[in-house]
């Protein structure tokens, strides 16, 4: 470091140097903020596994296959919750997918401009309603409605009461109610992704179909939907991810019972509602840890499901640039 007299040129160089270091600091800071996201995700993963570890060590794989949940005697098997999570989400997907894809097709292909924006806005608003409000509406409006009209219609008028799927008394809070409320809640997600993917289908694809003499529906069915298929599947899987982890609304309408029943009229449990419902009553460490282990299972499943969904949507939407 030899000191030398500063010249005008040097001073200019110094200023450029200072600004460069400003740029460098800026880059470090924004990179740091960006790195918070992976770090946060890693910390969440660590936290749930750390909290659930004692239960995993105590019960092993049987934790997810045993159906005996007895906090008093320290026996924990989460199979009913796993079963309930799968069934309620499946009901939601079956109910919501055709509706959501229908709405998306209507909005992207048929709706006049004047109708398109307000309807899209209303459907998007469904995603903005807090889960607890869905739960409140579900428990005080939807469940009584299902009990008095839909369930009696299915078992008495359609005479399906004898089939295992609709067997047993209709109390109201049930797998069916949970599936219905979940269907409403995931509909905006599926429909938003489907719309996005439909808009990414190239114009030439549609024009080619129309030029061959297809009606508008044939154009959609034969040219647009096949092109958008994997993206739509991605949207449905994204909705599945939401349904699997949805907590409050489901907790309020599913009935919270540790049973595995084939009947959709029977109450059940989901993994998320099990945690929400029992955590405040959990007295011993093993009970808390068992609930956290259920949370760890939920974490793994939703990370995988979301990763698959994002990959599918990304793969389709990328076609936009081509």
């Amino acid at each position, binding site marked *: 470091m030899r000191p030398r007299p500063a010249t005008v040129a040097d001073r200019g160089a110094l200023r450029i140097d200072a600004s460069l270091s400003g740029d460098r600091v*800026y880059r470090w800071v924004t990179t740091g*903020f960006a790195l918070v996201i992976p770090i*946060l995700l890693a910390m969440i993963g660590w936290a749930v596994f750390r909290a659930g570890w004692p239960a995993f060590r105590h019960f092993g794989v049987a934790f997810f296959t045993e159906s005996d949940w007895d906090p008093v005697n320290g026996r924990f098997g989460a199979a009913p919750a796993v079963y309930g999570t799968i069934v309620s989400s499946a009901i939601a997907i079956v109910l919501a997918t055709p509706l959501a894809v229908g709405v998306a097709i209507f909005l992207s292909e048929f709706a006049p401009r004047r109708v398109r924006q307000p309807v899209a806005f209303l459907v998007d608003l469904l995603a903005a309603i807090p889960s607890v409000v869905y739960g409140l*509406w579900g428990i*005080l409006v939807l469940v009584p409605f299902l009990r008095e009209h839909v369930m009696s219609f299915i078992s008495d008028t359609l005479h399906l009461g004898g089939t295992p799927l609709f067997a047993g008394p209709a109390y109201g809070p049930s797998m069916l109610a949970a599936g219905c409320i979940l269907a409403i809640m995931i509909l905006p997600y599926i429909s938003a992704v489907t719309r996005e993917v439909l808009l990414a289908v190239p114009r030439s694809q549609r024009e080619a179909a129309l030029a061959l003499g297809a009606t508008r529906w044939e154009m959609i069915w034969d040219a647009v939907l096949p092109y958008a298929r994997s993206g739509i599947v991605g949207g449905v899987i994204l909705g599945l991810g939401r349904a699997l982890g949805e907590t409050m609304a489901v907790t309020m309408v599913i009935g919270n019972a540790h049973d595995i029943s084939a009947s959709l009229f029977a109450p059940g449990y989901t993994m998320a509602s099990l*945690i*929400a419902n029992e955590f405040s009553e959990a007295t011993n460490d093993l009970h808390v840890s068992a609930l956290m282990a259920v*949370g760890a299972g939920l974490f793994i499943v939703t990370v995988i499901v979301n990763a698959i969904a994002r990959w599918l949507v990304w793969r389709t939407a990328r076609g936009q640039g081509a």
Partner: protein
Amino acid sequence: MAGLAHGAGARGVSSSVRPGRRGGAQGALTRRRFVNRLMIALTCAAALIATLPLVLILVHLLRLGAGAVDWTFFTRMPVPAGEPGGGMANAIAGTAIIVAMASLIGLPVGVGAGLYLAERRSARLATSVRFLSDVLNGLPSIVLGIFAWQLLVRPFKHFSALAGAVALAAMMIPLVTRTTEEMIRLVPVATREAALALGYTKWRTSLDIVLRTALPGIVTGSLVAVARIAGETAPLLFTALGNQFWSLSATRPIAALPLQIYTYAISPYDDQHAQAWAGALVLIGLVLVISVAARFATRSRFGRGGD
């Protein structure tokens, strides 16, 4: 509906496309046009059915909640079960505190990460951060609650408003990151280049010119994120916990509007159901006002060109 008439133009083509069925071509065409009409009607019906729950929820909220929303609802404390009246003053204050703390943590991180993603669009780190941000966004909110519990409740052995705020901040970060990135990408490259050509350094260009141009969009996007987390219940169940009494402390359990709605909704008392409806109406009013305002604010600024 406009544009249904082009089936007529397709007539000649369809009969030459299927030469073997020339005899039934007219019938086939009628059938195809019928299917076309039917499916258009069905998608239209799907749109109607999909908006029905929203309308029903809003109608029920107004009918059952509006009666209990008055001045005392905002100024009084909750009353014991079985007594009519009372308010949710502590829960409203609690929600404000938790959301403010969550925003203090979540907004800077989200905006910073969004800036990074928008400026280094295709760097390998940017691609994976974008992907992981989507994954984080898809995590169930109750898992974020477990995270905050393990991080801040378990070691200190008591529930706290801060733990709830951390859980909500974790939820907010991917939302804000996403909108910030989108809004910054809407700023024309020419704006950035003009600033650089005038001798602005990169960081001042980013903060003074680009970020400021995109700011209205980022603010509205952040408001939407605030509205989203303000209604969350699950992450607060075992972090903020809820509190019957007045508390504004960051290190003690605190009441929150969604928690209070949940407690009242599952109680057997009609008075408490009425309070739950009123609380839900206030909550949804907050969310809707912010969503609608954000919608108009962003549209007037950016939405003019496209759809």
